[in-house]
């Protein structure tokens, strides 16, 4: 349910005909909330422009996988790319948006999402290229992890990039990092501003009435 809110709200951020990367894990789910007719091409950093839905049973092809290693499909107009072109598209500013999960985001809008030193060391994969170079970075994540706030005054985990992300979308809120700090822009349905402040370790800027997310398709 809470995941559904994140995916639904994030899908509304994606513009028709744009080129979008969805990170492994939760962000991948955003694609299911995007109509195929709106012409968005999804980037799969392992080697495809035009990633489609999971293939139906029996149609899996080991030659066509996504960045998580799962079976994938390609939309009409898709293109096979090698890793050099894949990251050329990312670094060269051709990617409109990347949606990534997060471990921490801080008051300056910096994201940490690739390592917990000594504990969880998966490596950065494509995340550093994506966060440093995509035109727009959206962090889509649960507001807290086991009850602990993930939006903190200052990241204690190693940063993914020295770049302010553009938007944070959680199961509780939409928050926009700005020069002045983190602005609380929207509440999830049924969630109060107090509850959000309670679940957030960082200071939030709250201007007037905070509207509820519009989740209509």
């Amino acid at each position: 349910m809470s995941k559904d809110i994140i995916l639904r709200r994030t899908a509304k951020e994606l513009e028709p005909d744009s080129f979008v990367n969805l990170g492994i894990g939760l962000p991948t789910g955003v694609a299911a909330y995007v109509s195929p007719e709106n012409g968005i091409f999804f980037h799969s950093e392992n080697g495809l422009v035009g990633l489609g839905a999971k293939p139906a049973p029996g149609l899996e092809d080991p030659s066509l996988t996504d960045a998580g290693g799962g079976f994938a499909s390609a939309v009409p107009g898709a293109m096979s790319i090698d890793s050099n072109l894949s990251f050329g598209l990312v670094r060269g500013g051709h990617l409109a948006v990347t949606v990534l999960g997060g471990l921490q985001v801080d008051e300056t809008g910096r994201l940490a999402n690739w390592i917990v030193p000594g504990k969880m060391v998966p490596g950065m994969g494509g995340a550093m290229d994506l966060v440093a170079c995509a035109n727009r970075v959206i962090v889509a994540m649960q507001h807290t992890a086991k009850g602990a706030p993930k939006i903190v005054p200052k990241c204690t985990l190693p940063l993914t990039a020295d770049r302010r992300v553009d938007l944070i979308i959680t199961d509780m809120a939409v928050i926009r990092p700005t020069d002045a700090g983190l602005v609380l822009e929207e509440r999830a349905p049924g969630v109060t501003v107090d509850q959000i402040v309670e679940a957030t370790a960082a200071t939030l800027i709250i201007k007037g009435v905070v509207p509820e997310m519009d989740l209509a398709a």
Partner: protein
Amino acid sequence: MKHPISPEEAVAGIPDGASIMIGGFLRCGRPQRLIEALLASGKKNLTIISNDTGFAGEGIGALISSGQVARVVASHIGTNPDTQKGLIEKTMQVDLVPQGTLVEQIRAKGHGLGGVLTKTGLGTIVADEAEVLTLNGEQWLYAPPLTADFGFVYADRADMVGNLAYTLTELNFNPAIAMAADTVFAEARVIVPVGAITPDDVRTPGIVIDHLIARA
């Protein structure tokens, strides 16, 4: 014209301590028969340069589990707890590199360029161990070309000249590695007659391939 050899013959000439670049992304586009022959050979103290280290006990992961690998250079080891354990417990050297930088460092070597200048990693711990250059007033992280003694690549089709054609997401690191490693072994799904791959479909020219792996 190439004279195809078996995976066993291919790995026979690889010494302990060799560095090997391996194409593929998790299971996709991976030269599986070469990896299995390397595992069976028992060669030790290897350096493996690859996007990832696969899954525990499988493919490159099996090489990690068997203790044949002294050093890994990769962008993502999240699918293999053994590699993560090796890094945390310092039983293996594991160098984590951003994916786009890693594949561009490999291309730099193959294309005779002096390295990569990228924004990726600036202001992170990756930059702590790298050189940061200021060029025309702008900061760039410098990453040197990456070399390896051997390269294992996978292709969909090869011809007897060694030309390679790839399909879908099997490309990944393979074309870059084919250009970069000193001695390159190419494993293909099929070997077709010369001319059966059109000039427009070849992605790796046979002249950079040292040995084709014979059909299974």
